[in-house]
């Protein structure tokens, strides 16, 4: 016995329509006249736009229902500027009429929006997690910045059109444009985004792609733009500076912010709608991250900003770590150089010691010769004075005198070449050392001697060091000083005692009141590195003997340059 199965639409608030097929479809609203805030009754045009009977998928489902099979299809339509996600259930007639079916339309718009939102959140989390993973794998600042920018602009998650990173300088006095990514025109954007959409790449894959190419062609313009940026952190009128100083992330825009700051932003970036997120790590300000939607004009929401902030926190720490690592690397490099220099110095010292021993021996030999020579020659001369030329011995004494004179001349020449270069480390009177250094500086091209002032109490102060190294150090410092004050005559040098140290003041006089500050400032470059090797060695020698160099003001007067050495204990 055949069983009759009645298929009926479920009880629902959603609209239920009756479709009757004559020459064309006749639609009657059976139930639920409201759909997505719209009233369906007597609005055939509206119903047509919701039902979309011309859509092939919907047509197929309707045809299937007329053939007695229940159907379901999901589709998307736009009504009154609103995108609706619909689910259409088509039921064959419960009364068995072949030309009638019942349709139930379920509004899934909210579900879809939630699903999309959820999907976006998952994507964002995924991007952040991939970025954090990538941060952990590198200490290279450029790579970290590249990750930051790709994270900001990649995919449907953060999906900003353009991203810019400005970093703060070490003294945190200004921000400088470092790196940017993103298209500058809609055409460029089209090419890039179509390409990325086709590939559907993960952040990791995009990063790999970027690493394999030296620079993305589309980034050239934005990088030119960012490279031209240098923003003083004292420029309070700048909206970026304001955000950075307050530590708060902001979204700029004509309705949110106003004034000259915005105009500046518009001039510099071509837009005044921008997310500004300070990059602040444990160590303090690292820079600022900027992002905008110049091409798509998509509004930047508070939710976008929140995500950027999370991202910026990780990025800031990664940047700080990278900078610390960079500094550490520099220090290691400097230590390596210093070590190499020490090894070189040691080798030179050994060489010098060997030469010194040879020279000393030679001089001792010379001394041993000169004493008897003086006696022999001296007595020969004495004899010559006592006898007359016709004496038979006269000629012999004359020969002895002449030959001893020849040997003496040879010894003089020898002594002038082999100067006594014995090991000089020992106890020396500071004033004598300084005076001798000043004398050394005075030569035919620079005949002036600086004025040396030392009171009686300092005459006996002694220091323990290598005489030669002391001269080397002082000559470098004095020569540089004289260059800065137009000659030695404009320098005066004073030796004083300050507790356990002997201090040598080098003063530029009234005509050069800023000499000391200029000298000290000029020692190092903007990165804090010593500018010349000679000075680096001089400072190392100072350090080696526990001394130092600096500037100081006496009785609130002009600054003086000073060099100090620890005094020998016996002098304290």
């Amino acid at each position, binding site marked *: 016995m055949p069983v009759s199965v009645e298929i009926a639409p479920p009880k629902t608030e959603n609209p239920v329509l009756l479709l009757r097929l004559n020459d064309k479809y006749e639609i009657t609203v059976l139930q639920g006249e409201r759909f997505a805030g719209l009233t369906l009754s007597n609005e055939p045009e509206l119903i047509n736009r919701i039902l979309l009977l011309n859509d092939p998928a919907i047509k197929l489902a309707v045809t299937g229902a007329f053939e007695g099979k229940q159907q379901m299809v999901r589709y998307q339509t736009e009504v009154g500027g609103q995108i609706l996600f619909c689910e259409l259930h088509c039921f064959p007639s419960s009364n068995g009429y072949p030309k009638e079916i019942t349709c139930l339309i379920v509004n899934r718009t909210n579900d879809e929006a939630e699903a999309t939102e959820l999907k976006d959140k998952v994507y964002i989390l995924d991007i952040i997690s991939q970025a954090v993973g990538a941060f952990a794998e590198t200490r290279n600042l450029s790579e970290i910045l590249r990750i930051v920018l790709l994270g900001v602009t990649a995919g449907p998650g953060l999906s900003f059109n353009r991203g810019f990173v400005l970093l703060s300088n070490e003294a945190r006095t200004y921000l400088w444009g470092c790196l940017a990514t993103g298209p500058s025109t809609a055409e460029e954007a089209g090419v890039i985004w179509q390409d990325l959409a086709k590939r559907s790449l993960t952040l990791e894959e995009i990063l790999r792609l970027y690493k394999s190419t030296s620079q993305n062609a589309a980034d050239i313009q934005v990088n030119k733009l960012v490279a031209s940026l240098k923003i003083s952190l004292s420029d309070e009128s700048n909206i970026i500076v304001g955000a950075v100083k307050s530590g708060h992330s902001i979204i700029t825009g004509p309705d949110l912010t106003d004034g000259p700051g915005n105009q500046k932003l518009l001039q510099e970036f071509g837009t005044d709608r921008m997310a500004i997120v300070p990059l602040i790590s444990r160590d303090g300000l690292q820079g600022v991250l900027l992002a905008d939607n110049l091409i798509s004009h998509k509004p930047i929401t508070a939710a976008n900003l929140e995500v950027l902030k999370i991202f910026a926190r990780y990025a800031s720490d990664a940047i700080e770590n990278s900078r610390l690592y960079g500094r550490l690397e520099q220090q290691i490099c400097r230590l390596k150089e210093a070590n190499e220099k020490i090894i070189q110095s040691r080798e030179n010292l050994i060489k010098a010691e060997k030469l010194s021993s040879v020279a000393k021996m030679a001089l001792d030999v010379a001394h041993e010769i*000169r*004493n*008897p020579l*003086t*006696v*022999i*020659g001296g007595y020969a001369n004495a004899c010559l004075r006592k006898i007359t030329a016709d004496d038979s011995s006269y000629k012999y004494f004359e020969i002895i005198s002449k030959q001893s004179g020849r040997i003496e001349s040879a010894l003089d020449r020898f002594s002038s070449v082999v100067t*006594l270069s014995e090991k000089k480390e020992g106890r020396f009177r500071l004033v*004598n050392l300084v005076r001798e250094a000043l004398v050394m500086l005075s030569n035919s091209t620079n005949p002036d001697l600086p004025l040396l002032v030392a009171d009686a109490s300092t005459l006996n102060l002694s220091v323990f060091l290598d005489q030669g190294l002391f001269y080397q150090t002082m000559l470098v410092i004095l020569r540089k000083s004289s260059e800065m004050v137009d000659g030695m005559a404009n320098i005066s040098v004073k030796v004083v005692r300050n507790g356990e140290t002997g201090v040598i003041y080098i003063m530029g006089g009234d005509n050069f009141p800023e000499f000391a500050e200029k000298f000290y400032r000029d020692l190092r470059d903007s990165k804090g590195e010593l500018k010349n090797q000679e000075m680096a060695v001089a400072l190392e020698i100072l350090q080696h003997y526990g001394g130092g160099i600096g500037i100081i003001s006496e009785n609130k007067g002009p600054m003086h340059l000073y060099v100090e050495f620890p005094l020998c204990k016996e002098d304290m």
Partner: protein
Amino acid sequence: MKNILIVDDEEDIRSLYESELGGEGFITHSVSSGEEALQYVEQNSEVDLVILDIKMAQMDGLKVLEELRSRKTTMPVILNSAYSTYKSNFNSWLADAYLVKSANLTELKNQVKELLAF
């Protein structure tokens, strides 16, 4: 008559200088070490000039010179060494003259005369 003290550890040098300077009309005395020189000067206030060798065993000439100067003595001192290198030593600047030993004693004699205004 001016008194000259000759300080040198070489006996033949002392002998030569005594003979040559004696011939010039000076009264000469000689000692062979720095310590003896200091002792001699302390005990004999009539010394008018010292000719001082530098490199000697025990106390060298520069130390002797430093000691003499610290005693506030004003007598002229001529450093007379076989080495020329001590000229650059600042301690040697305390002397009134520095002469490298030579068989030709003319310069030494002239210097002695000049310092003693002889």
